[in-house]
Each structure stands twice: as C-alpha cells, then as structure tokens.
C-alpha cells in the first residue's frame, strides 16, 4: 500500500474513534501515532486489513493515553464499555472533520496545519518540512489549534466555504518538500467535492487542475519564474486542462456562481489559447467584472486593469488602474507593465524597480529586476 492510500484512511479512522466516544484532540493524536507506526512497519509487514489495523492501533493508543490520565478514568470506563462500531465508512463524520479543522476560530496557518494532519494524514514532520519550521514548532501549532476547537461540538454544522479557503491556501502557498502540497490540496478538494456536491468545491478543483496543468511550464529547470505570456504552452498538461474544463462546465451549468468558479473560468480561457495572442481578453475582463461583484477584492481590480489593458489597449488599462487602491500588492508591477505598453519606457523601468523592491518572493523579485534592467538598457540606448 502506498503512502497516499494510507493517508486516505486517516480521517475515517479518526471518525471511528470519535464516534466511539473519544474526544477529537486525543483521538487525532492516537491516529497520528498509529500512522507513524504504520509508516514504520507496513513496508516489511503489510496488514491484510489496513483500515482495521489502523483502528485497532489507534484505539489502543487512545486507551493508553486516557488511562495515563487518572482524572479521565471515568470517561475511559464509559468509552470502553461502548458497543463495537458499526460500519467504519462514514462520510458525514469525515466531512465533520474537515469542518472542525477549518473552523473559523482558527488562524489560517493553524487551520492549514490541522487540516494537513487530521484529514490529510500527513505526519507532523512532513508538514513542518513543507512550511520550513522545526517539527516541535509545528507540533505546538497543531496542539494549540486543537485546543482552540476543543469546545466545538462534533455534530456542529460547518461551512464548506471555510474548508475550501483552507485548501486554496494549501494549494497556493508553501514549499514542496517530501510531500507535494499541490497534489495534496487537489486530493482533499476532490474528496470535499465528492462529499458535498458543492459548486464551489467543483470550481476550486477546476481552478487547481487548470493551474496544476501549467506547472512544468511555470519555471525553468533552475527555478526561474516564467510569466504566463512567455510559457511554452506545448508543455501544459492537456489531460489536466480537459479534466478542469469538464468539471467547471458542469458546475457553471448549475447556475450558482462563486469566486472559485469564476477564477477557474479565467484560467480556462488562458488554457484555451494556443498562443498568447489568441487569448480572449474581452471575455476575461467580463469574468473579472463578475469576480469583482462577488468579492470586492482590490487585487481583483488590479488584475482586471491588466486584462483591460490587453483587451482595449494600454491607455484603457491605465484608466482602469486609476480606480485601484495604490497600496494593493503588485500595483507597481501592474503599472510598469501597462506603462511599457503605452511607450513610457523610463517610467516603466522605474516602476519595475519599485516593484522588485516590494516583491515578497525571490522568483518574482528576480523577474521584476530583469524587467527593470531590460528597460533601463533600452532607455540608455
């Protein structure tokens, strides 16, 4: 059994323990312990019934943990006398775990960490690696997150939107260590979609697949960022694009629009263009208008202004940019791009320089610095 299949079993095992009367925090720790033992022993000695093995191991660990705390003896007696579980597959319990891990009382980073461990089935070390922090720090972040949600009732109904936001963060941020976070986000979003039949879960899944399709073209082998317009489109994964488009179309047909569906629609229009010149910018602007109505996010207006510049010319783009708050991240980069297209090269060069200094990641900083250097050498003649 490979590690991904093992991870698939984790939320259901936690669900079984909780249904037997275990509290979420202790159950989750017990399941993590069983997971670590499975990773260590299964390669040499694979069990006939992996899920049963995990439930037994986790349940024993849970009883040990509760036994160790004398104040909890009463509860142990109660849970130990509970009847054996019924069927072990319970979608409602698993979905409830997703809600719990994305609970609005959690900060985004703790929701991400707890989600990756309790429903993603990742080990604390793997999560720590992915976010470049020590394992002890990540363990504490997860423990605190569990304390924060300790008062949440397990049958309290959650909001799918909060779960999707956490999965979006997993997909969009973080480094890829031993575990590929993008793959992990896609796997979990697929699961949420199958459990909820939610249009926005479909929208998010489509968005992820459409962006994942560009992965090979997004950076050069040495890690240099390649902007969308310069990507070698023959390296885009057409199977992923087709899958993303199909999921998106089915969601859009249900006429319950949301921000992820709209973002996916924009990504699909880019994916549809064989060359950058074939991009349907007019439609992209229309989708940005839709997204603006749904989110009122200033970053959306910034991206819209760039799209307007492509659809109706640089002056129109600059006019649209005037409506955007100048303090929005990447404002200078967007203005630099439009100024260059408007022929204002010296100003564009200066703005690219500003944008490079404000960049929050190295790949972007290097890219913007190169743009500034290119224009400065043109201006100097």
């Amino acid at each position: 059994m490979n590690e991904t299949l093992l991870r698939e079993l984790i939320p259901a095992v936690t669900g079984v323990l909780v249904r037997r009367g275990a509290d979420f925090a202790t159950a989750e720790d017990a399941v993590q312990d069983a997971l670590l033992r499975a990773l260590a022993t299964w390669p040499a000695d694979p069990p006939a019934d992996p899920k049963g093995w995990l439930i037994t191991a986790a349940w024993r660990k849970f009883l040990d943990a509760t036994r160790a705390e004398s104040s909890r003896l009463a509860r142990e007696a109660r849970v130990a006398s509970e009847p054996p579980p019924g069927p072990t597959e319970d979608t409602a319990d698993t979905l409830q775990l997703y809600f719990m891990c994305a609970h609005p009382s959690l900060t985004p980073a703790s929701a991400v960490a707890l989600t990756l461990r309790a429903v993603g089935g990742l080990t604390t070390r793997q999560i720590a690696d992915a976010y470049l922090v020590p394992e002890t720090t990540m363990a504490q972040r997860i423990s605190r997150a569990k304390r924060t949600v300790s008062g949440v009732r397990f049958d309290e109904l959650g909001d799918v939107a909060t779960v999707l936001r956490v999965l979006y963060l997993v997909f969009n941020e973080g480094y890829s260590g031993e575990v590929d976070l993008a793959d992990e986000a896609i796997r979990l979003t697929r699961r949420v979609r199958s459990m909820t039949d939610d249009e926005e879960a479909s929208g998010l899944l489509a968005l992820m697949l459409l962006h994942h399709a560009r992965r090979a073209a997004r950076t050069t082998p040495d890690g240099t960022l390649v902007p969308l317009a310069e990507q070698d489109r023959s390296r885009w994964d057409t199977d992923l694009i087709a899958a993303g488009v199909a999921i998106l179309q089915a969601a859009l047909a249900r006429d319950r629009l949301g921000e992820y569906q709209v973002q996916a629609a924009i990504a699909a229009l880019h994916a549809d263009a064989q060359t950058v010149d074939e991009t349907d910018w007019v439609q992209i602007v229309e989708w940005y208008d839709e997204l603006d109505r749904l989110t009122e996010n200033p970053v959306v207006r910034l991206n819209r202004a760039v799209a307007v510049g492509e659809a109706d010319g640089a002056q129109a783009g600059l006019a649209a940019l005037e409506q955007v708050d100048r303090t929005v991240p990447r404002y200078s980069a967007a203005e630099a791009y439009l100024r260059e297209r408007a022929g204002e090269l010296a100003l564009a060069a200066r703005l690219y320089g500003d944008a490079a200094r404000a960049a929050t990641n190295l790949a972007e900083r290097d890219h913007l610095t190169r743009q500034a250097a290119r224009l400065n050498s043109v201006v100097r003649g």
Partner: protein
Amino acid sequence: MAKYLLLKHYRGGPAPVVNLDPMDQWAPEDVDAHVQWMRDFATKLQETGEFVEHQALSPEGTFVRYGGEGRPPVTDGPFAETKDLIAGWLIIDVETYERAVEVAGEYSAVPGPNGKPNYEWLEVRPFFGSPPTVSE
C-alpha cells in the same frame, strides 16, 4: 504565515537607549538571568508555534573578500571596536507583520545589568516567501 529575521544589533542601528557594558562586566546573576530569559523566550515562541531558530554570534569577526584570479582571499580585521555589533538573531514564523513587531518589542525587553530591560534595537527583516501558484 511569513518568516522574519530579528537581528540583534548590540551596537549600531539607531541611537542606543541604554549604553550597555560588555556582558563580562555584568554581575554574574545578571548574566544568568539574561541567559535564562532568552531560553524562556524561545520556549514561549515554541509554544505559540512561531519559533524557527535562534543563534548567538561570537563578537569577533573578520571581513573577507575575493582576492582575484589565483590569489588567496583578502582579509581585514578583526577590529577590536567596530561601530556595529550583531550579537545574534531570532527567526520567527508569524501570521502578520504586526505580530513580528510585537515579538521584537518583547524580545528587546531582555534583562541587562541590574535586571533592567536593555532596550536594544532589533532589526525586523522579512524573508522572501514562496511564489504563489495562482497568479492571475
């Protein structure tokens, strides 16, 4: 989350609030209290899930540069009294810039001689993060 480097300028940076003697001139119990306070501070940040790393640096440093093709590197110093002295650093992973500033403010209250806060300047520098996947 974003990572920040809190750089301890023992000397240098803006004008010092307290002119600190070198630690070997402090009372031994003040040195102990200082060291223990730093350990406790790191532990506290571990518990909040924000700690990444901390390091102290030996005060003596040497400047080194490329010496040219086929030649050994050029060195300068060490200098007995440099204007700037970096005593070490702390790296944290926090939710916001405001939180990074808050942590730096608390860190600067580390006790010096006579157990009084030493008010040292911390330079807060953001690390570069990972580029976002969704770009448009």
